[in-house]
């Protein structure tokens, strides 16, 4: 074997190299500078094999060459995989874009530039949401953009691409899904400290998400009244009475074809009637007004009236915010409950 430039640099390789053909040897002798612009596929593959062998420690006599991986290497390995170094990953990426585009070969599973979804993580190290098993609920018509989960579309996106954008997409996907989480602001709980909380929405074609809600926090979720300005809260009983009056007027009004009543009126009227447990709204108000003095908010009073609880434990279980001032309001609530029991309408 004629000793060539490359061979003399790697004495350990002598046994592994095949007989080089003269054309190739001529190429080498021309001493093409890095980066190699003129590469054959074979040279590329060989280089990759050699590099892989070197990094996996096959050439143990070159112990000195293989230095300890730097912090950059360790970080980048989560995107690149442990098989190669980052420098080679970038180089190969640039090459594959051009070469594989020309040759038309698809990237293989062993290709180091291909993002392995299991290893991909966001730079902050937060759990990648797309790693969760997607659940597809494919039935209804409305779309599901706002729910915090958007794993499947972004997941498949990052898998398909074999370009330098794939890294960006991986990072972008998680920030997108976090952004949509921000958009659906009513879903972002006050208890934001619990990480990894996801909702399943699954409506429409896009919908696919998985739930991982800790059940403990659900029970403790407090009522958050998001009332617009200039509005007064109505208990179900009060609303039922008002709607009843309107319903009576409606009989006359509906004779005029031009007058339009909102669609949801009928259904809501039914809902209010079913939800109303009491005979008279006025008496309910009288019973529950004293509670306001001991710090029970309007919303909480409304909840108590709407639920129609039977025991005090039920009240505390369903309206957890009252537990905070339990010592103050327990007696009053018990009294109120007994009074309400008297005016409850028979079902």
């Amino acid at each position, binding site marked *: 074997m004629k000793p060539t430039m490359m061979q003399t640099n790697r004495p350990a390789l002598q046994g592994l190299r095949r007989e080089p053909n003269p054309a190739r040897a001529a190429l080498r002798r021309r001493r093409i500078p890095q980066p190699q612009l003129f590469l054959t596929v074979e040279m590329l593959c060989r280089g990759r094999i050699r590099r892989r062998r070197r990094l996996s420690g096959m050439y143990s006599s070159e112990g000195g060459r293989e230095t300890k991986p730097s912090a950059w290497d360790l970080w980048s390995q989560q995107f690149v995989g442990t098989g190669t170094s980052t420098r080679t990953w970038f180089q190969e990426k640039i090459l594959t874009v051009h070469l594989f585009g020309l040759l038309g070969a698809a990237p293989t599973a062993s290709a180091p530039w291909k993002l392995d979804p299991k290893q991909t993580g966001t730079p902050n190290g937060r759990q990648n949401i797309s790693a969760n098993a997607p659940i597809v609920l494919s039935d209804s018509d409305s779309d599901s953009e706002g729910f915090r989960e958007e794993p499947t579309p972004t997941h498949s996106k990052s898998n398909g691409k074999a370009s330098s954008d794939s890294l960006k997409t991986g990072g972008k996907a998680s920030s997108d899904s976090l952004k949509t989480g921000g958009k659906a602001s009513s879903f972002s*709980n006050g208890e934001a400290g619990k990480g990894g909380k996801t909702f*399943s929405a699954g409506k429409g074609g896009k919908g696919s998400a998985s739930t*991982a809600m800790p059940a403990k926090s659900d029970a403790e979720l407090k009522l958050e009244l998001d009332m*617009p300005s200039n509005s007064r809260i109505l208990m179900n009983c009060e609303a039922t009475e008002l*709607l009843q009056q*309107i319903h009576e007027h409606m009989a006359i009004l509906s004779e005029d074809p031009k007058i339009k009543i*909102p669609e949801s009126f009928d*259904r*809501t009227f039914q809902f209010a009637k079913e939800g109303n447990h009491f005979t008279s709204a006025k008496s309910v108000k009288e019973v529950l007004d004293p509670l306001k003095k001991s710090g029970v908010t309007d919303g909480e009073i409304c909840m108590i009236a709407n639920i129609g609880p039977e025991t005090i434990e039920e009240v505390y279980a369903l309206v957890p915010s009252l537990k905070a001032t339990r010592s103050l309001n327990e007696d009053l609530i018990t009294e109120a409950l007994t009074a309400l029991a008297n005016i409850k309408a028979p079902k």
Partner: protein
Amino acid sequence: MVFLLADMSWNVLISPDQLSSKGLLLRKSILVRLLEDIANRKASKEHGYYIAVNELKEISEGKVRELTGDVLFPVTFTCITLKPMKGEILVGSVEKILKHGVFLKSGPIENVFLSEKTMNDYKYIGGENPMFMKDHSKLEKDTVLRFKAMGFRWMEADRQFQLLATLAGDFLGPL
């Protein structure tokens, strides 16, 4: 869902052919137009579902729009609305049962989703009549149950709310 009695103001646009000389007819046409507008609007993110107009407070002076000839009347009124609140206890009936959850219907809201994961101990039983079962209680179509609203979302495109429910907690479940 909480009922609200909201003070609202709206600009009612009356076209010239309805502006007759008789003052009463004008008032009626404003009211009709207002009811029509509210019915078309169905719901808003701020107030929730519009249920019914309760009381007309004031019809202010009309302003003529120069190019079209329409007259704009700012109207203030009170309206009964229904808005879902986070953390609320609600009652709904089962609409559809799927392997991963149940769709419920409550009042005007038709899209209430209850995930299987929040239904502790309920197991899905498929077949011709799918249901969720736990010990002696069953969740089938039209079962009425009490749930807690985890959160809701306003969908601008459909102009309606979507609600996420949970059964995790005491005193929740079929009634």
